[in-house]
């Protein structure tokens, strides 16, 4: 039997973590799509799309990110209690979420300005930051699922 059998008490935090991660992935991709679409067309349409990107970032991405990170901490505390040494694949997850939180905050600040001024040059950074974060999430789910080096 190759599958890892984990205690039942780990299932809820794992579910919340993965649920949060999939919502984060979808919300980040939506921000990227709206952000790229908001770089083109007439100023009124651009402002509307950028405003939508900002609101989805605030109302969906941030709560999803908190669910993902909270679930991760909950299950990490169960699996590696009392400051036990964590494996590299788990550290990758923390690297993606901790600096990732800063990236999301910067992205939202830029999205807020971009939604107010059609000529705001930083608007172009919003979808690119979202795209970079999508790649980072991909690296994290590779580390979490394949657990290289473990």
């Amino acid at each position, binding site marked *: *039997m*190759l*599958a890892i059998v984990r205690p039942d008490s780990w*299932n809820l935090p*794992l*579910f919340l973590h*993965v*649920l949060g*991660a*999939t*919502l984060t*992935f*979808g*919300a980040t*991709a*939506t921000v990227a*799509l*709206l952000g790229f*679409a908001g770089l083109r067309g007439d100023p009124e*349409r651009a402002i*509307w*799309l950028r405003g*939508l990107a900002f609101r*989805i970032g605030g109302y*969906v991405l941030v709560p999803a990110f908190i669910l993902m990170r909270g679930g991760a901490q909950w299950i990490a505390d169960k699996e590696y209690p009392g400051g036990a040494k964590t494996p590299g694949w788990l550290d990758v997850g923390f690297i993606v979420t901790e600096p990732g939180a800063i990236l999301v905050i910067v992205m939202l600040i830029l999205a807020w300005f971009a939604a107010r001024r059609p000529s705001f040059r930083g608007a172009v950074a919003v979808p690119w930051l979202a795209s970079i974060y999508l790649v980072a*999430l*991909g690296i994290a*789910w*590779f580390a*979490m*699922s*394949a*657990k*290289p080096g473990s």
Partner: protein
Amino acid sequence: MNLYDWLLFLHVTGAFFLLGGIVIAGILNLAAITKNRPPSQVASLYGLIRFAVPLIGAGLLLTLVIGLWLVHEADYGYGDAWVVTAIVLWVVASVLGNIDGKYQRKTGDLAQRLAAEGDAPSSELRARLRAPQALAISYASGLMAFAVLGIMIWKPGA
């Protein structure tokens, strides 16, 4: 890394594509229906939903094919209750998603036509966007996909 690790990674990738695609389509759909938007805005949002379609398609394929391979590789049984339940939910979610996709495509086409014809508010478009049966099919399909995620984690009866 052994074969099981790679298969698990591909299976999880499929799940992220599928659920991520559903989230994209769901968010954009909600954005379209929550306000009385002009047809041009609805058309813009539905135009973006089409980017979620290949993601959902790839996710459906990867989750099923790699999932079935994983059942064999990890010595689970194809008749296990959690495996059968997950497959049934996957099939029902796919069928409902397909019905919903066709309906949404027609709504997007209508919005595009109305936008080109003067962008005036349309009761027909509003009715299509908020049709209770269509919304029920759409959200049931998405919720079933997330229910499969729960089954994958709890594996009831395994």
